[in-house]
C-alpha cells in the first residue's frame, strides 16, 4: 500500500495505548495454508477510537482476535501500553488481560443461557479479583447502572432480555474490571437500527465517562463514520488504506475504498421539519 499522508492529529503527542506491527496470521487447513491477515500494523492513542472496516473475509475479526491474543499470531508484535503481549504467556498474560476486553457481534450467543445476568456480570470479578459478597453485589448493581438497566435485571436470564439489552449486559461485563482497551467486534450488526442507535450513542458516552480506548470492527461504514476518529480499510487480509475517518470518507485514495463507499445505497435527504 502507499504510505499514508501524515496528518497533524490531536493525538500526536500521546503515546499509543495499543500498537501492533506486522501482524500476520496463517491458518492451515487440509494441507493448504491461508493467509487471513497479512502484515497489518496499527496504533491507537489512549482515548482514541480506531475503526477497521472491510467485507466478509477481509480479516478484520481475525485482527481483533489477534490483538486480544485469543489466537496466536504467525508473525508480528502487539504492545499494550508499551508491554509486549506477543511474548507473554501463562500468568502474566492472564493478569494483563483484565486491561483489555472484547464485545462480540452476537449477544444472543455470548451469554450463557443458564446463568443469570448477575452471574454473567460477576464472573470477571470471580476470575480476576478477590472481590466477593456484598461488595461484589454492589459492583454488579453499579455496572447495571452504568449501562442504564434496572437492578431487577440481576435475577433474569438472557432469554428474557431483548437483543439491545443483552448487548448492554455484554458491554457491562466487558467494562467490569475497568479495562483500558475495549475491542468491539461488530457490536451492533445483529441489532435493529433503532437499537443500534442506542448502543452507538451509549458507547460514545461510555468512552468519555470511563476514559476508554476502542478498537471498533465493522462492515458498516456509516457506523464507523459516527464512532471512529481513525479508520483502516481491509481487503483480503491486507490494509488497503488508513487515515483520519473524515479524510478517508471524503477523499478515499484507493479504488477499493471508493468502490466500498459508492456501493452503499444513498437516501434522499430529509426535509427539515
Amino acid at each position, binding site marked *: 500500500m502507499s504510505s499514508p499522508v501524515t496528518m497533524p492529529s490531536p493525538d500526536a503527542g500521546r503515546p499509543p495505548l495499543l500498537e501492533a506491527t506486522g501482524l500476520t496470521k496463517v491458518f492451515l487447513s487440509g494441507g493448504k495454508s491461508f493467509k487471513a491477515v497479512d502484515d497489518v500494523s496499527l496504533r491507537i492513542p489512549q482515548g482514541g477510537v480506531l475503526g477497521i472496516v472491510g467485507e466478509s473475509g477481509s480479516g478484520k475479526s481475525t485482527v481483533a482476535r489477534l490483538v486480544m491474543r485469543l489466537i496466536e499470531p504467525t508473525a508480528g508484535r502487539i504492545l499494550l501500553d508499551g508491554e509486549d503481549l506477543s511474548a507473554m504467556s501463562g500468568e502474566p498474560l492472564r493478569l494483563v488481560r483484565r486491561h483489555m476486553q472484547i464485545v462480540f457481534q452476537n449477544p444472543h450467543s455470548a451469554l450463557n443461557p443458564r446463568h443469570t445476568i448477575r452471574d454473567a456480570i460477576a464472573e470477571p470479578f470471580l476470575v480476576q479479583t478477590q472481590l466477593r459478597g456484598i461488595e461484589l453485589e454492589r459492583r454488579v448493581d453499579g455496572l447495571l447502572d452504568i449501562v442504564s438497566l434496572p437492578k431487577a435485571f440481576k435475577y433474569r436470564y438472557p432469554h428474557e432480555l431483548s437483543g439491545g439489552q443483552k448487548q448492554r449486559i455484554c458491554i457491562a461485563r466487558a467494562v467490569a474490571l475497568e479495562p483500558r482497551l475495549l475491542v468491539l467486534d461488530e457490536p451492533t450488526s445483529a441489532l435493529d*437500527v433503532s437499537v443500534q442507535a442506542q448502543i452507538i450513542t451509549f458507547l460514545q458516552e461510555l468512552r468519555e465517562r470511563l476514559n476508554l480506548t476502542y478498537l471498533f470492527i465493522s462492515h458498516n461504514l456509516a457506523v464507523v463514520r459516527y464512532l471512529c476518529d481513525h479508520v483502516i480499510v481491509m481487503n483480503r487480509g491486507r490494509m488497503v488504506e488508513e487515515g483520519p475517518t473524515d479524510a478517508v470518507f471524503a477523499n478515499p485514495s484507493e479504488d477499493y475504498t471508493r468502490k466500498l463507499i459508492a456501493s452503499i445505497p444513498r437516501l434522499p435527504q430529509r426535509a427539515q421539519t
Partner: protein
Amino acid sequence: MTAFLTIEDYRLDIPTFDGDLKVLDGITLSLEKGETLGIVGESGCGKTVLARSILGIGPARGKRMSGRMVFDSIELDELDESEWRRIRGVKISMIFQDPMTYLNPLFTIGRQLADVVVAHGRAKAERTPSRDEQRRRCDALLEQVQIRDSARVFDSYPHQLSGGMRQRVLIAMALAGEPQLLIADEPTTALDVTIQAQILELLRDLVSRLGLTVVMISHDVGAIAAIARRVAVMYAGVVVEQGRTEDILTRPRHPYTQGLLAALPEIEGERHVLEAIPGTIPNLIHPPSGCRFHPRCPRATDICSVEKPVARSIGADHVVACHHALA
C-alpha cells in the same frame, strides 16, 4: 390502472400456548403491475409473515381473522393446494435471505435448476422437456441473471459459489416459471455491500426488462430506497405509513417512520445526532391498546391508547395511520 395485488384489512393470528399472537393487524396494501413496492420494518414487525402469506406459505397454524388478498383477480385465500400449485413459481415466485439454506448442498446447481425447469415444463406443456431443452433453458436462465460463466456454475455445488452467485442462482430458479410477481424477502441482507449493489442492480434490470412486479421486504431502508418506487413502513403488525419512496423518506409523517430515519447513521453529509426510539417492540400476544406504537411515541396523547388510528390519505399517494400525523 387497476391494482395487480390487493391486500385488504388482512388480519392474522398465530395461536401459541400463551395466547394468540396478533401478528398482522389489518394490513391494507395494493400495487400495480410492473411496480416495485418496498416493505420496511424492524425485526418482529410481521413483514416476512406478510410476504409468505401472499404466497400461501404463511405460518402453518396461522388463522386469518379478517380481510382478503386478491392477485390478478384471483382470491388467494380461497385456493386449495392443487390450485396453489398453478400459482406458486408460475405466477408468484419468491427469493429468500440466505440462498445457502434453499439450495441442496448435495446436488450441483445444474441438477437443481433443471429440476425446477422440468417441473415447470410438465406443468405448462404437460410433458418433460428433453435433456437438450433443459440445458438450453438453464443456460438462458443463468444468462438472465447475468452469470457469464454459466458452464462452470452449472457444474458447481452450492458451497463452491460465492454468496452473490448463489443469490443469482436462486433468482434464476424463481424466474424459471416466468412469474409475474416476485417476492424478495431480505434478498441482500446476507451479502456484502458491494455484492448487494450488484444484486439490487440485477433486480432493477429484471423489473425493466421482464416487466416484473416486485414486493421487496427489508429492514434496510437504503436497499429499499435503491429499488422501490413505493414503500410501506410496518410496525408491530401494522402498516403505519405508505406512499412514494421519495415522499416517505424526505417527508415522513408517522412518528415511527421519523424515528426510524433519525436512528440511521449517514455515510455522507453532516453527522446528525443519532436518536434511538425509546422502549422496545411490544409483545404481540398482548399488543398495546389503540395505536400499537403509542407507548414509545413522542406525540402520544390520551386518544392514542384508546382508539386505533385509521389509515388516512394526507396527500397524493401518501397514507398515514396516526392520530397526530404532522400536517
